[in-house]
């Protein structure tokens, strides 16, 4: 029988629940086996103390609510969130102390490569302190505001957070955004200044920043080096002392929050849950407040960080349950689960995923369509926040219009497709969901709504039928060394941003707040910001609703004929700039023809930009004798064959890649 000890727990590592079989195959390096639990993996990675507990199911009733702490770690990219998590896991004996524990909770290749957490992971830690056995639930959150909804749901299962700040870099934009999410959720915030071992570390300065920006007395900061393990134990102490236990009741009917869900191809959906009230055990009949569907619980357990089944889960505890759900959309993040015949008030704050960035996705080669389709299906099995609509383009063929929570979400999705499924895709320039308030009674009747959302420029309604257009806006936070302030303000102005606030967070660092139209930052804002601040400025944003905007539909014409795939919605003030840029890019990718090609950008009948591709003056092989003939004929036939595949717009022949070059996102990684 196992005993509660401060360390030395071994619950075994099993399959990371969210990794589906196929995805797993493609991942390099030591990985859990693709299916089921993997004994070899057990032996290889876990060799601590007794193995007695393995076969026994944990009795979670021995943890009274007052001995439970639910908390998250939040931090700017690279400030050491995952490394601190590794140390906490080691310190509590959850994982073995080896050199291989690098970002144990970050399992995706993209997460480790980019130092971001995409998929939240959860670990229950057992910790003994002053004679008491504590259950500390570390609920790891996605590390980016693209996922702020997920972050907010994860945080709603917590009572406190560890706010990790790099002792060298100090507060960054994401630190601020994360802090306010925690602050709004009324959580206890424990500031942790990490990387104090760095040569240029200046924890005192960071302490002062924290005091100034977050109004947290400087004495409350814990200074650690997660890398070296320095002072990490006092973080655990602070978790116990400063974070209150959850306010929940075991006696009440079950009320469980779904804060994450993953898909396993053999076991179905695995929902990560936090119990606000009641108890759940195997065999219970439960209902989803959102879908109203009933399920029978097959398995409950805790995450350590891999699943370990238990008899029951009790109020205040965090774990997983498997209940025959077939699809992650059946276990949506923020949903409430309750017992059959014992309905409860759903937990507040549930929202369906709301994509903010849309882009077309097409296979590079149409013959790859089915492979890509299955890869997208597999990836979205684990990410219900990606919306998928079938779409087709004359230039790019059959594909999809995908909606993402934000740009990073889009990039990560694309990267996972490439890395885990070896898919090669064309991603078109992202657009944002504009809205139009309709004035035409006929259209209102047609859409059955006065306000419509436009995710595809082709559907943009004419101004005569619209009383106003709306564009999504975000509140952006920029933190930068003050020497770059001037340039950054110019950049923001050029992006139609309105300054809301500007404060010095210490002697030479400035925090700027701007209200940005979302479409102004979706493509290359971050790159521009980074390049003009030599990489020092950081940026983050949060949803700030919609504002009215003078939007226009811009057509691109080739010798007077509209190119459907290049129709763009653009702000009136930016039309000239954007139109010119598209014309220039198109000019560079259109081959010369026997006549001049006029490339124009137009709003209605008004031409706002023009480029010209001159006619061929000479295109004939100079030397064509005996040996050249075979070569020339081969070339001509290949070209003639290629010409058949060209898209004809009026008399202009356009190679497929010309549009791709214009449509493709500009930031080549």
């Amino acid at each position, binding site marked *: 029988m196992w005993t509660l000890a401060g360390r030395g727990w071994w619950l075994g590592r099993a399959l990371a629940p969210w990794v589906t079989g196929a995805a797993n195959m493609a991942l390099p390096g030591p990985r859990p086996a693709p299916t089921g639990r993997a004994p070899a993996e057990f032996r290889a990675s876990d060799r601590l103390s007794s193995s007695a507990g393995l076969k026994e199911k944990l009795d979670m009733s021995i943890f009274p609510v007052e001995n439970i702490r639910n908390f998250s770690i939040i931090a700017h990219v690279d400030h050491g969130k995952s490394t601190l998590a590794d140390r906490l896991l080691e310190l509590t004996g959850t994982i073995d102390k080896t050199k291989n524990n690098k970002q144990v909770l970050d399992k995706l290749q993209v997460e480790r490569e980019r130092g971001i957490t995409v998929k939240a992971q959860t670990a229950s830690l057992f910790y003994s302190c002053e004679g008491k056995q504590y259950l500390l639930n570390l609920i790891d959150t996605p590390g980016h505001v693209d996922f702020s909804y997920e972050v907010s749901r994860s945080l709603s299962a917590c009572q406190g957070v560890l706010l990790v700040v790099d002792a060298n870099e100090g507060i960054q934009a994401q630190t601020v955004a994360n802090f306010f999410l925690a602050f709004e959720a009324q959580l206890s915030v424990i500031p942790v200044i990490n990387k104090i071992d760095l040569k240029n570390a200046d924890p005192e300065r960071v302490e002062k920043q924290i005091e100034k920006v977050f109004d947290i007395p400087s004495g409350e900061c814990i200074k650690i080096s997660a890398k070296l393990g320095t002072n990490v134990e006092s973080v655990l102490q602070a978790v116990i002392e400063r974070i209150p236990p959850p306010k929940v009741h075991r006696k009440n009917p079950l009320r469980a929050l779904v804060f994450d869900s993953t898909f396993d191809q053999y076991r179905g959906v695995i929902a990560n849950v936090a119990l606000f009230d009641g108890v759940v055990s195997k065999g219970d009949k439960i209902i989803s407040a959102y879908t109203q569907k009933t399920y029978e619980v097959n398995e409950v357990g805790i995450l350590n960080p891999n699943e370990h089944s238990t008899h029951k889960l009790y109020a205040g505890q965090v774990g997983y349950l498997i209940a025959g759900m077939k699809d992650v959309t059946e276990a949506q993040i923020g949903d409430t689960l309750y017992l059959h015949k014992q309905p409860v008030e759903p937990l507040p704050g549930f929202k369906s995923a709301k994509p903010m960035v849309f882009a077309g996705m097409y296979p590079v080669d149409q013959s790859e369509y089915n492979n890509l389709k299955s890869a997208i299906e597999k990836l979205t099995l684990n990410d219900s926040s990606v919306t998928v609509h079938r779409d087709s383009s004359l230039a790019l063929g059959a594909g999809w219009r995908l909606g993402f929570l934000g740009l990073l979400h889009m990039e990560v999705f694309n990267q996972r497709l490439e890395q885990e499924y070896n898919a090669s895709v064309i991603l078109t320039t992202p657009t944002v969901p504009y809205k139009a308030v309709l004035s035409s009674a006929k259209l209102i009747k047609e859409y059955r709504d006065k306000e419509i959302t436009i995710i595809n420029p082709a559907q943009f309604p004419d101004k005569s039928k619209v009383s106003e257009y709306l564009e999504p806006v975000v509140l952006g936070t920029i933190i930068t060394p003050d020497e770059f302030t001037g340039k950054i303000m110019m950049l923001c102005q050029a992006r139609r941003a309105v300054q809301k606030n500007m404060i010095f967070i210490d002697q030479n660092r400035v925090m700027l707040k701007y209200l940005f139209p979302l479409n102004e930052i979706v493509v290359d804002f971050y790159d521009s910001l980074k390049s003009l601040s030599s990489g020092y400025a950081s940026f983050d944003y949060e949803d700030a609703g919609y504002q009215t905007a003078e939007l226009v539909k811009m057509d691109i014409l080739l010798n007077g004929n509209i190119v459907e795939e290049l129709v763009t919605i653009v702000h009136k003030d930016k039309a000239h700039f954007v139109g010119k840029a598209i014309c220039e890019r198109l000019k560079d990718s259109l081959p010369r023809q026997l006549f001049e090609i006029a490339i124009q950008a137009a709003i209605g009948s008004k031409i706002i930009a023009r480029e010209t591709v001159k006619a061929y003056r000479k*295109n*004939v092989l*100079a030397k064509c004798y*005996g040996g050249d003939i075979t070569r020339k*004929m081969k070339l001509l*036939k290949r*070209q003639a064959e290629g010409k*058949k595949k060209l898209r004809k717009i009026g008399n202009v022949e356009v190679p497929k890649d010309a549009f791709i070059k214009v449509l493709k996102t500009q930031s080549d990684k």
Partner: protein
Amino acid sequence: MAVPGARARGWAAAAKAAQRRPRVEDAGAPPSPELASRRAALYVHWPYCEKRCSYCNFNKYIPRGVQEAAMRNCLVTEAQTLLQLSGVRRVESVFFGGGTPSLASPHTVAAVLEAVARTAHLPADSEVTLEANPTSASGSRLAAFGAAGVNRLSIGLQSLDDSELQLLGRTHSANDALRTLAEARRLFPGRVSVDLMLGLPAQRVGPWIGQLQELLHHCDDHLSLYQLSLERGTTLFTQVRQGALPAPDPELAAEMYQKGRAVLREAGFRQYEVSNFARNGALSTHNWTYWQCGQYLGVGPGAHGRFMLQGTGSHTREARIQTLEPDNWMKEVMLSGHGTRKRVPLGKLELLEEVLAMGLRTDVGITHQHWQQFEPQLTLNDVFGASEEVKLLLEQGLLLLDDRGLRCSWEGLAVLDSLLLTLLPRLQEAWQQGTPSPVPGG
């Protein structure tokens, strides 16, 4: 066959006399009573050069020492073998190209010509051209080539600007070239051609036109203007790619070409092909054969040929390529009489595609009669008359289709490769509609 026949030796002397005869006949007219399938041009490749030119990607080798006797024997053997296989009875022209064939000894040239004359009929007035490099062609050598049977010279002058010649990696100076040209004209009056390149990196239009006009003071009745094409694997290509040289500007090259054509027209030259200009009827009959899709035999390493194997009873034209590398080629010739590495039978449609693509390079284009020789059923009007796309080209004034035939206009010739991208698919389409089951060579 150890003793060169008296007839062969006599041929060189007869040719010598014939070369003085002014050529007036139009190269377009059928020159002989022999059946087209029994006639051919002959190309002989001499694969060696002294030095690699910076722009050249031809099949050439810089040898430490040439075993000329062995090479000569192999050229002779292969010429005889291929003539026998082809069943060709009359050789209408011989062209010694390379490489640098003026580095070969006149004896080798004579031996090949004698072998040809022994195996087939080589009329005394057949055009026998030798490509000559100014540095390897002193007056006495040129005279010796003349004695061996050569009656036309093509001089790789390339430029009259010494710095450009250096850029091209040529071993001669502008003065060397002009001296060689004068010598050649003295020896082969009316039968000397010079090459001039255009579109070099950093070359400007004005000075180049100046070169052309200067050249007009010295040249004979034939001139070729070649636009430089940067070929992968050449020094020039690498230099441009690495940024050591500016990339040639296609706009400027187009302007040089247009202005150059105009200047030559003023000077009384007929542009009888995309890059070739002649006056006083001094067209190259050998090259004309290529553009008219006549048969030609390719002898020597890497040489290309297109002919039927009537000697073996076949009626299918084949595209043949000889083994590239000289030593290997020689081994094969010694082993089996020829060094053909690749044989590709040409289907009837493929042949018609070549008729189209090559014929349109010439000023006369494709006459109805010429087309009919290759395709008696489907007329030019059948193929192109109804096409909307072709109509557009006719309306743009790039192409002409009338009772003479199909040909490029002055403007159209400069963009022929673009026109062909419309014409070739149209031909394929018409062919598939007109002949459901084509029987190649049938």
